């Protein structure tokens, strides 16, 4: 081979590589995500907004109010409410910072405001772990961008256009303006008819759009980003991509869904931009696009780019957001969107275990929700959009049921409890086979078997051992579909009763033929129905470790028999009552909550006093734990310093676990599947238990004050009436929940309520009671 040919071949190879790269340049796959995915965590030092209390921030902002301002009270209230709302968002543990996504979003904002450094200094941008497609701006310059929004972006320019809109909200002080307007409207200072509240909001949004467009004009981002941003919002209710969901995803040669479990065609996606926006805070997309176009006027897109910070970086962070979205949907119990999103990502990353785990968890919990509980509770059907009561049709009016995702909704609406559990078992067995070292799949296999055997009353024998082909052949024989054998049997019979006229055209022959045909048709129909309805019977034909599955099934059947026996003899069976405590030595105390409300006032929640009392109450909590000799460790957000990043990340993990746990119905069969988180926390803090405490105190209007005053005049009743008149009419509620991270249970729950103030003795008494109940050893009687 000559040098020239070698060079030619090399060039051809390079060209081919280039073509391949160009082909995938729109949505590259990332090597780091091929097999695993680790959820995103915040890094570095804790920002000031996390360490400074909301009270401090509020008092600082009070200084900004001009003394001669007309709406001084409203402005104060606004600062108070916005700071405490932000505080609540921060304490939810959903905010990310210094991570890859936040860094990228910050870089885009830097790029937008590179000519306005002063304005940039006023702004801080964070990413929120929420699947809702949204971004919002606070009056103090904090912009929050949801993970859901990032997962739906198509290019950097779209993100830039959305950020420009949010920056305009800040520069125009829209949040303050709308708050003051709302207050004035409520007081009747400005006219309010019908949906005027929305009109004011829409006006602000259009103004922010126009201002945002002007700001966008100063950047080098392509104008396509503006329209793209609006289109993104238009279709924000849909998944991040539209790919046909193929039923073969869950099937194998034996486990095949019936045809009617899949729709021939999914509902079309509504692309109407001019929707009725009378009751919307934002104007419809058509109006927004028109307004932005009018502001922009004639434009030239040459030299402008869709990506400035980095195309690859953008695709990478978007991919991270999409992976994160699956986790968020699991926590929110939105299992069907989770399955579809994982399906979309698996197209790119077919070996990613995290995605398979997400699907496995979703499948199990769908089956768990559909299955009846053994305690005789009604079927749990709290799953979003899954109606297990009729289990047949789906409501096509629902906005989420458009596009290819409708197919998944339809499938899971069709599946009954046994079929869902069989699907979960089938999928988890398949994954167990391909991921031998994984710990989750075997757990879910076991749980699915229990679900089938205990909750659905299915035995191992229910499942076919033969392949579907053999089974169908046997069915055909049973149903007598084979006409040859039928006729031969008949011809062999030569009794007088059956000896009819040989004439084929005789009426008797015709009747016989017609009846035989009908019988055959009916048998065929029955066969098809039987074949289709019992598809779940083939879940174990191709299964991995059949003997092990059989053993587990038999154990689960025994368990079912025991439970049934207990249920039958429930009235004779007395559970031993624990007269003692829980006997727990070490707990993890999380930051409590404290709400002081005054029902007599316009602004019911007393933010600052709640915050101050919260700080004091944490001391009470630790004091009582000390007194009761409970060993404890604390993760208290209110005490976090700049260097407490580890504690913050633990706090976030615990909050994620708690969120998923609380989204489950306590009586359902569902499992909290955020177990890896729990494992990490358990090992780090050397305890399985986390304690959440909280106080709600509210004051109400005192009744019968007039009578009390009159009675006071009669001297003797004064002994009762004077204390009554002096006393505040208050109610205080105390809450305490001890979660067990190991078995995902509420170990201790206590709710106390008294017509009393939230005095120190009240809090001490109940908190100490909780601690002593945790500490004291159990005493069964």
């Amino acid at each position: 081979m000559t040098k020239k040919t070698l060079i030619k071949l090399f060039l051809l190879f390079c060209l081919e590589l280039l073509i391949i790269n160009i082909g995938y340049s729109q949505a590259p796959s990332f090597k780091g995500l091929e097999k695993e995915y680790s959820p995103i965590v915040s890094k570095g030092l804790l920002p000031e907004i996390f360490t400074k209390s909301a009270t401090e921030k509020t008092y600082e902002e009070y200084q900004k109010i001009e003394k001669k301002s007309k709406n001084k009270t409203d402005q104060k209230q606004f600062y108070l409410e916005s700071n405490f709302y932000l505080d609540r968002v921060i304490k939810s543990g959903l905010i990310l910072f210094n991570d890859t996504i936040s860094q990228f979003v910050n870089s885009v904002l830097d790029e937008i405001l590179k000519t306005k450094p002063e304005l940039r200094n006023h702004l801080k941008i964070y990413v929120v772990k929420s699947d809702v497609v949204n971004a919002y701006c606070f009056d103090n310059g904090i912009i929050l961008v949801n993970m859901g929004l990032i997962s739906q972006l198509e290019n950097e320019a779209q993100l830039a256009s959305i950020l420009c809109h949010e920056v305009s909200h800040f520069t125009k002080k829209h949040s303050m303006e709308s708050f003051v307007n709302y207050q004035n409207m409520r007081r009747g200072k400005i006219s309010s008819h019908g949906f005027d509240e929305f009109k004011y909001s829409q006006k602000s949004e259009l103004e922010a759009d126009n201002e945002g467009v002007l700001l966008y004009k100063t950047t080098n981002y392509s104008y396509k980003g503006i329209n793209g941003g609006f289109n993104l919002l238009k279709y924000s209710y849909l998944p991040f991509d539209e790919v046909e969901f193929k039923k073969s995803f869950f099937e194998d040669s034996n486990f095949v869904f019936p045809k009617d479990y899949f729709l021939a065609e999914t509902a079309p996606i509504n692309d109407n931009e001019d929707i009725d926006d009378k009751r919307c805070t934002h104007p419809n997309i058509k109006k927004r696009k028109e307004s932005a176009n009018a502001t922009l006027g004639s434009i030239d897109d040459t030299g402008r780019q869709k990506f400035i910070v980095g195309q690859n970086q953008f695709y990478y962070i978007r991919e991270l957001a999409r992976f994160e979205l699956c986790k968020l949907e699991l926590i929110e119990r939105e299992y069907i969107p989770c399955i579809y999103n994982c399906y979309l990502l698996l197209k790119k990353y077919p070996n990613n275990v995290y995605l398979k785990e997400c699907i496995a968890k979703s499948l199990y919990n769908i089956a768990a929700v559909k299955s009846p509980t053994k305690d005789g509770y009604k079927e749990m059907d709290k799953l979003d959009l899954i109606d297990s009561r009729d289990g047949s049709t789906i409501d096509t009016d629902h906005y989420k049921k458009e596009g290819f995702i409708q197919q998944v909704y339809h499938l899971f609406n069709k599946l009954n409890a046994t079929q869902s559990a069989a699907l979960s078992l089938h999928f988890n067995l398949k994954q167990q086979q391909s991921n031998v070292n994984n710990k989750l799949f075997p757990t879910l296999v076991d749980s699915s078997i229990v679900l089938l055997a205990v909750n659905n009353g299915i035995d191992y024998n229910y499942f076919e051992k033969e392949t579907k082909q053999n089974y169908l052949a046997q069915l055909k024989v049973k149903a007598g579909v084979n006409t040859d054998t039928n006729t031969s049997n008949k011809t062999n019979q030569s009794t007088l009763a059956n000896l009819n006229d040989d004439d084929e055209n005789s009426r008797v022959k015709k009747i016989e033929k017609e009846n035989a045909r009908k019988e055959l048709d009916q048998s065929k129909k029955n066969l098809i129905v039987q074949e289709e309805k019992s598809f779940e019977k083939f879940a174990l034909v191709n299964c991995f470790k059949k003997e092990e599955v059989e053993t587990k099934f038999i154990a689960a059947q025994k368990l079912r028999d025991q439970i049934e026996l207990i249920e039958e003899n429930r009235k004779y069976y007395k559970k031993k009552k624990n007269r003692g405590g829980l006997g727990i030595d070490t707990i993890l105390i999380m930051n409590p909550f404290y709400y002081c409300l005054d029902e007599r006032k316009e602004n019911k929640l007393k933010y600052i006093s709640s915050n101050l009392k919260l700080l004091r109450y944490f001391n009470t909590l630790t004091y009582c734990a000390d007194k009761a000799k409970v060993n404890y460790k604390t993760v208290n957000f209110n005490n976090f310093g700049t260097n407490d990043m580890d504690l913050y990340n633990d706090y976030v993990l615990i909050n994620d676990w708690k969120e998923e746990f609380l989204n489950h119905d306590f009586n359902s069969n569902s499992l909290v599947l955020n177990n890896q988180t729990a494992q990490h926390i358990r090992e780090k803090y050397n305890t399985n238990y986390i304690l959440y405490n909280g106080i709600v105190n509210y004051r109400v209007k005192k009744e019968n004050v007039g009578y009390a005053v009159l009675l006071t005049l009669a001297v003797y009743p004064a002994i009762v009436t004077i204390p009554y008149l002096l006393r505040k009419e208050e109610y205080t509620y105390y809450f305490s929940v001890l979660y067990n991270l190991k078995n995902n249970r509420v170990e201790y729950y206590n709710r106390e309520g008294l017509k009393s103030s939230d005095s120190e003795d009240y809090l001490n008494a109940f908190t100490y009671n909780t601690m002593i109940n945790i500490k004291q050893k159990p005493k069964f009687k």
Partner: protein
Amino acid sequence: MKTLNYFLILILTFSAKDINAQVVPGYLGKKNSFNYQLNVSPAVIGPNQVDKTSWFSYDTYPKTKESSFITPFNFTHSFNFQRVISRKIAINFGYGFFTTRQYVNLLVNDVIYTQNNYLLENIGYNIINKNFNLSATFYRGRAIAPFGAYWRLGLSYGINKTIFDNDNPKLIDHTEVNYYYYSLPPELKFNISDQNLNFKSILFNVTYGKSRIFKKCIIFNRGLNFTLTRSLIAASNSEMVNQTKKRLRGHELFSFYVSVGYLF
């Protein structure tokens, strides 16, 4: 008798420890308290006033040396020991005392000349009651003993003693028709101490109250108390005995109370 009472209190206190079969938090682990209680009764029945014969009357009694009853209220003082035995129940042992005052007009027959009657007007005397109390406190609703609202049922054993202002009161002739004598025989003397007024009584009381705790160790109670008193004395025709029983019932029937104690 006194020694027996003390023993009884001690035995019950320590036996309470064995009753403890469930979680007994107490208040921050403190289950015992010792307190002083003051019951104040508006004394609707038989007020303890030196001047008014009844609360709704303007008639007055003659002034005496007694000056302790300067208010229109009855007072009872008591010292109590309380021990929490479960989350909702506490037992109390108490020692209480009160002094109440009574005026009685007494008609006395001459022992020798039975036709003659003499009137002892406005005999003033103090009734001193000492009682030992055993009660159980049941904390209401979600309250945790010894904190919160409660009902208390108690039984007391009272010992009453009477002290007269004047053992030899002046007799005034009250004979309607005096045929034989024109003047009082100077030798006739009446010893009032002979009246049997030192009897025992049983008091059954029902209390509704609330307790608060300050500084983690000072317990403050307030509430209402109803007491039914049963005097352990045979039925008598004596006006003095009946009036004394009435006075005792009236003193304790209904009262407000406050108490301050130390929690340990």
